[in-house]
C-alpha cells in the first residue's frame, strides 16, 4: 500500500515550495508524525511531517528542487514497524491527487453573441459627448437617426463614421486628425461637397495650417536641461588635433577612439570627473563619458561607464547596444546618467568646426569636427567654469592632444581593439 507525499500547501498564498533537506533516507522507516523534510516556502522554513507510518520507498524530488504545491514528492509504503505484529494495516483507498489548476492563466469564457445585447432605442438618443460633437458640427443627430443613418443611442464613433461617409474620404479624415483641424471649418469651406485627400491638402496649404507634433517626454527633459545649463558660466577652447597616428582597425571608428582617449585623459584631471553638488565637488572614481546620439529628431546622451577600464572593442560594442536601445526607446535611466563629459561628433557628417551646449550638470562637452586631408581635426571643448577653470581646461586639452600622438599608448589601445 503506497501513500503519496505531496508538496504541502503551508499557507493560502503558497504556490510552490523548495525542498531544503530530506531528514529521512530512502528505505528508512518513518513514524506517523515524524518530520521527514524541511520545506522552504515564502522565505520561511517549515517542517513536513509524515501522516502515515511506513517505509520511505522513494524520494522523487531532491534537495534544493522547487516543486509546485500538490505534486508528489515522495512515496511511503505503509507498513507496520518491521519488528512488530502482523496485523494488517487499516484499509485505505488511494488518495485522489488534487487536480492541478493552471493558476496564472487567463480563462476566457465562451464568447456570447453580442448582437442581441446591443442597445437599440428610439431616435433621439445619444451620449453626452456625441451630442457635443454633433453640435460642434451642426449635425442634427435625430434627423439622421430617423433616416437610419446614425444608430440610436449614438456614440462618438457613430458620428465619426457618419461624417466620414458623408463629408470626407477615409484618408482625408485621417489627415484632419493628424493636423487637428476642426472638421466644421472644412465643411463650411467646401460647402456640402465630399472632401478627399487632395482637396484637404489644398485647404491646408491655402490656410497655412501647421502640423502639430507634441514634444516627447525625453525631448522635454532635454529642453529643460539645456535651458538650465546655458545659464551657468562657460568658456570654450578650440584646438587642432592630429589624428594621423590613429591606426585603422575594422569595426572601430574615430568616435570610439575619441571616447577612449578622452576618457583615459579624464583620469588625470579630477575636475573633469566632477559634479558640483551644493558646497562640494563629487569626484567619480571612473571616467563616465556621454555620447550624443541622434535618432530621428530626438537626441539622446547615452553614457558609457568606466571608459578607463574598457577596451576599444568593449566601447564599440556597448555603444552599439545603447544606440540600439535608443532606437527602440528602451533606454533605462541607468543608461543616460552619470557622465561628467560628453562627446558630440558632428565631424562624421563633414562639419569642420562647431561648438556644443554643455549638458546639464556636466563639466565638459567636446565638439569634434571632421578630419581633413591632413588627418587633423578641430575640437572645441566647452567647460563649466565653476568646475574646470581656464588653466585646468587648457592642460586637459593639451593632454588629450598629446595622447593622440603617443604611439606607444595608441599601440597599446590597438591591442584591445580586436
Amino acid at each position, binding site marked *: 500500500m503506497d501513500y503519496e507525499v505531496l508538496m504541502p500547501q503551508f*499557507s493560502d498564498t503558497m504556490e510552490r515550495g523548495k525542498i531544503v533537506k530530506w531528514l529521512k533516507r530512502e528505505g528508512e522507516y518513518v513514524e506517523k508524525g515524524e518530520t521527514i523534510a524541511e520545506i522552504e516556502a515564502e522565505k520561511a522554513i517549515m517542517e513536513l511531517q509524515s501522516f502515515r507510518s511506513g517505509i520511505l520507498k522513494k524520494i522523487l524530488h531532491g534537495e534544493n528542487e522547487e516543486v509546485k504545491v500538490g505534486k508528489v514528492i515522495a512515496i511511503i509504503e505503509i507498513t507496520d514497524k518491521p519488528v512488530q505484529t502482523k496485523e494488517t494495516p487499516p484499509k485505505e483507498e488511494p488518495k485522489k491527487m488534487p487536480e492541478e489548476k493552471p493558476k496564472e492563466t487567463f480563462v476566457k*469564457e465562451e464568447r456570447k453573441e453580442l448582437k442581441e445585447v*446591443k442597445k437599440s432605442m428610439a431616435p433621439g438618443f445619444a451620449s*453626452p*459627448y*456625441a451630442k*457635443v460633437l454633433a453640435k460642434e458640427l451642426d449635425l442634427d443627430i435625430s434627423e439622421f437617426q430617423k433616416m437610419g443613418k446614425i*444608430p440610436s443611442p449614438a456614440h462618438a464613433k457613430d458620428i465619426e463614421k457618419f461624417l466620414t461617409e458623408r463629408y470626407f474620404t477615409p484618408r482625408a479624415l485621417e489627415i484632419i486628425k493628424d493636423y487637428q483641424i476642426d472638421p466644421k471649418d472644412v465643411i463650411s469651406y467646401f460647402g456640402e461637397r465630399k472632401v478627399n485627400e487632395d482637396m484637404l491638402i489644398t485647404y491646408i496649404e491655402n490656410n497655412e495650417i501647421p502640423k502639430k507634433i507634441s514634444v516627447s517626454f525625453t525631448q522635454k527633459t532635454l529642453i529643460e536641461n539645456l535651458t538650465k545649463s546655458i545659464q551657468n558660466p562657460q568658456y570654450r577652447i578650440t584646438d587642432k588635433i592630429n589624428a594621423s597616428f590613429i591606426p585603422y582597425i575594422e569595426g572601430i571608428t574615430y568616435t570610439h577612439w575619441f571616447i577612449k582617449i578622452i576618457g583615459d585623459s579624464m583620469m588625470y584631471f579630477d575636475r573633469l570627473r566632477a559634479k558640483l553638488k551644493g558646497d562640494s565637488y563629487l569626484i567619480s572614481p571612473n571616467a563616465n563619458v556621454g555620447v550624443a546620439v541622434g535618432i530621428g529628431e530626438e537626441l539622446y546622451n547615452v553614457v558609457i561607464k568606466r571608459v578607463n577600464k574598457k577596451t576599444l572593442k568593449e566601447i564599440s560594442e556597448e555603444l552599439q547596444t545603447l544606440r540600439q536601445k535608443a532606437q527602440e526607446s528602451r533606454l533605462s535611466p541607468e543608461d543616460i546618467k552619470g557622465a561628467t563629459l560628453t562627446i558630440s561628433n558632428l565631424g562624421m557628417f563633414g562639419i569642420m568646426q562647431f561648438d556644443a551646449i554643455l549638458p546639464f550638470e556636466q563639466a565638459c562637452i567636446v565638439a569634434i569636427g571632421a578630419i581633413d586631408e591632413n588627418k587633423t581635426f578641430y575640437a572645441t571643448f566647452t567647460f563649466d567654469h565653476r568646475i574646470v577653470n581656464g588653466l585646468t581646461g587648457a592642460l586637459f586639452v593639451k593632454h588629450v592632444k598629446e595622447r593622440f600622438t603617443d604611439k606607444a599608448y595608441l599601440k597599446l589601445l590597438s591591442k584591445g581593439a580586436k
Partner: protein
Amino acid sequence: MLYREALNLALDHAMESDPSVVILGEDVGFYGGNYKVTDGLYAKYGESRVIDTPIAENSIVGTAIGMAMVGLRPVAEIMTANFAMLAMDQIVNNMAKLRYMSGGKISLPMVVRMPQGVAKQLAAQHSQSLEHMFASVPGIYVFCASDSITAYHGLLSAIRFDDPVIFLEHVALYAWDFPFEYLKNFDPFSARIVKEGKDVTVVSYLKSLHDTLKACEQLEKEGISCEVIDLVSLRPIDFETIYNSVKKTKRLVVVHEAPKSLGLGAEISARISEELFYYLDAPPLRVCGEEVPIPYNRNLELMSIPTPEKIYRAILDWGKQNGL
C-alpha cells in the same frame, strides 16, 4: 522585492531616522507580525519602540492617539481591517476629529496600518474590503498600497505626515514579488497612470489593480485600449488625474473588490458625471464585489469578487453595448 518586505523597509527606515516613531499592535514585536511585516524590528529597536499589545483594537488606536498627542509618531497595526471595526470609535470619533475640535491645537502624526480584502477562503469575518468606511470620514487620510513601490513610499510618507493616516494593504499581496526602486518625488496624493491607453479609463487600486491590468492585456487583443489608473490615495482622491484621462478617453470604468453599493466606484462615477458629463460617450461602468458577505467555499468566493476574467467580460460587453 516582496510587498511585505517593502513595508518592513519603510518602517525600518522611518524608525532609524526618527526615534519618535514607534510601532504597536498584536503580535508585532517578538512574533514579528502575523504577516511578517514587522519582522526583525523588535530585535533592532527593542520592546519600548516595538510594542506588543493585547487583543484590544480600540485601545491600540486609542493609546496611539495619546502617544501622538504628546509627540510620538506611532504606527499602529491592526491585524486585519475586519478587526478595525472594533476600533471605529477611536478612528472615527477621535482620530479624525481631535484636530478640528481643538481648533487646530492638536495634531496626530500617526498611522493605522491594516490589510484587507479576499486572500483565500478566510470567510466572512476575515475577508472584507472596508476602504469606503474609512474614506468617508473627513479628518483622516486613507492611502493604499498596490505594489512594493507604493507600499514603501506610501507608508514612509504616511509616517512622516503630521496628520493621521489609515494605511490599507491587501492581504493577498504580502507574498507578491514586485519590481522596486527608490523614487525621489513620490507624491502619495497623486494617482498613478500605470498603463496608458486611449479608449477607456479604468480606475482601480490594491489587488484589483493587478486583476484589471490582466484583463486589459486581453482587451488590448480585442482592440480596446485601456488607460489604467492606480488611485494610491483614497481620501483625498486625485480627481484631476482621472478627469484628464476621461477627457481623453470619454469613458470610465471603476474596479474594486468591495460591494458596488456605496463603494468608491459610486463616488468616482458621480464625480465624473458631475464634472465631465458632456465628455462622456458612455455611462460609467463599475465592476465590483457582489452584495454578499464573502463565503468560505472557493468557487463562491471567486464569484463574489471581480476576477480578471470578469473584468474583461464586463468591459467588453459594456463596450459593445455602448458604441465602443
